[in-house]
């Protein structure tokens, strides 16, 4: 089978995000960038499917500038067989990403598409669902357990009410949640090996995606902080009194 894993280059999860001083965006210069952590989980899942004995080719795809090659190389080092960068220097919103991935799917004909439930930069949580709709295939979002059969998959989804299980026919789009797996660390010899694996590049315009609507971002601002105040009380009785005073008891 063929598994397509979509990955996005984002500011590393451990970096404290800062606004540009003029409020025109987020500071990215000199900031550590990584694979979106949920996409890393998606890739790990693909690798585990292959390691479980399934004959699987794993293709990592990213949409972005040349800099995204760095994250694709990491994906190759983790164990993807080959990588594809759809190159653009412009901003790519979810609908555009979904149409672009659809064009890649038309060429690649995967049996399964895996990606993170959301990217930790814009937090949109949209691209996987949009891709599934455009492809007219099933979607399993927030997946925390995935069992593949020959032509279908059982997916356990982390929904607000608990764990929901659905069965989907393949091919399908599965978006991954935090607890699906723990991604592996990349070892030095694998980084060396990854340099020899194929990484192809194609221009976004060559894929011929249609003109699409966009959200216009008109302002960036810092969130309002909580005053808190950290008033300390000495014991449980004082706590109850303080809560009464605030009118919450």
């Amino acid at each position, binding site marked *: 089978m063929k598994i397509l894993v979509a990955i996005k280059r984002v*500011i590393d999860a451990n970096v404290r*995000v800062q606004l540009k001083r003029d409020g025109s965006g987020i500071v990215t210069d000199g900031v550590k960038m990584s694979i979106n952590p949920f996409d890393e989980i998606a890739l790990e899942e693909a690798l585990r499917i292959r390691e479980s004995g399934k004959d699987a080719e794993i293709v990592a795809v990213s949409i972005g500038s040349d800099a995204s090659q760095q994250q694709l190389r990491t994906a190759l080092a983790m164990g993807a067989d080959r990588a594809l960068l759809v190159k653009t220097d412009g901003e790519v919103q979810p609908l555009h990403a979904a149409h672009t991935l659809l064009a890649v799917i038309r060429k690649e004909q995967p049996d399964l598409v895996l990606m993170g439930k959301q990217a930790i930069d814009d937090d949109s949580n949209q691209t996987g669902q949009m891709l599934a709709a455009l492809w007219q295939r099933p979607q399993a979002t927030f997946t925390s357990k995935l069992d593949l059969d020959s032509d279908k998959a059982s997916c356990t989804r*982390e929904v607000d009410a*608990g764990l929901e299980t659905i069965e*989907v026919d393949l091919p399908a789009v599965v978006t991954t949640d935090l607890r699906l797996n723990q991604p592996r660390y990349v070892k030095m010899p694998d980084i060396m090996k990854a340099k020899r694996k194929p990484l192809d590049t194609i221009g976004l315009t060559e894929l011929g995606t249609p003109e699409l609507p966009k959200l216009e971002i008109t302002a960036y601002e810092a969130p309002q902080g909580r005053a*808190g105040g950290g008033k300390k009380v000495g014991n449980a009785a004082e706590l109850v009194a303080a*809560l009464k005073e*605030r009118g*919450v008891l």
Partner: protein
Amino acid sequence: MAKILLIAEHDGQSLNPATAKAVSCAQAIGGDLDIAVFASSAGAVAEKASKFEGVARVLTVERPENEAPLASVLAPQIAALAADYTHVLLPSTTFGKDVMPRVAALLGVAPISDIMTVIDPTTFKRPIYAGNAIVTVKAPAEPLVLGTARTASFQPAAEGGSADIVAKQLDVELPTHTRYVGLKSGGGDRPDLQSASRVVSGGRGVGSEENFQIIYKLADKLNAAVGASRAAVDAGFVPNEMQVGQTGKIIAPELYVAVGISGAIQHCTGIKDAGTIVAINKDPDAPIFEMADIGLVGDLFEVLPELEKALDARA
């Protein structure tokens, strides 16, 4: 004037409280508001939805395929209904997040996830980077505006209305490639974490699954829902759906009591819209005290029984 369609979230029996908050978001946009209930049998849910103030009509779309909330089944029906509207809204729950983008792709719309503030009918504020920055986005008005309402940002809408309930037939072919198997819920009889007005959460400091009983006891005394930090979930003390924070549930109760929770950024992101935050921790330097309104430094196994007594004494 805006004509808004809100998609109700429900489990077949009762309306999910997130819907009431999305109604408030719709009211902030302003205009005519219809609520759509997709179900195999919409009865009680439609009845409840018709009670919100300011709702024009409740549309019920009843077919057996709508028994379970499958995005691939609901999306083409919502897309078909959407033609008469300027706005379509869903709550920003796992249900809304699953369904909304699928509708967006079918309609060719760039949608807005997690609306936290309505500036005007096409301009909204939403959080990015886990709430570490807020952006103002302007959506194209054509063909329509589609989004999810962040539940922690809106109060539940008032009741007191009596909208007409209208049955709708939609001639839409539905896919069969996705099948609902079941839901495993660990919730029990306690209030729903996402919508409860009071929440008591336990962290790593609670120590074990057995010790978590002390958290449940306090919660029951306060008629509160029970949550947990990621550390407590990862340690296996409680199931995943109880996790509060950036990677769990983002909540805004009137009272939030954090017990044995240090206050990692990822946890604080999930509670910063709460009314009053109480922190109980034996470490006086725990970061949770910085964001708490009331702090109590002490061993939770001593403090909680005392707190229960003090709560009893008050009655």
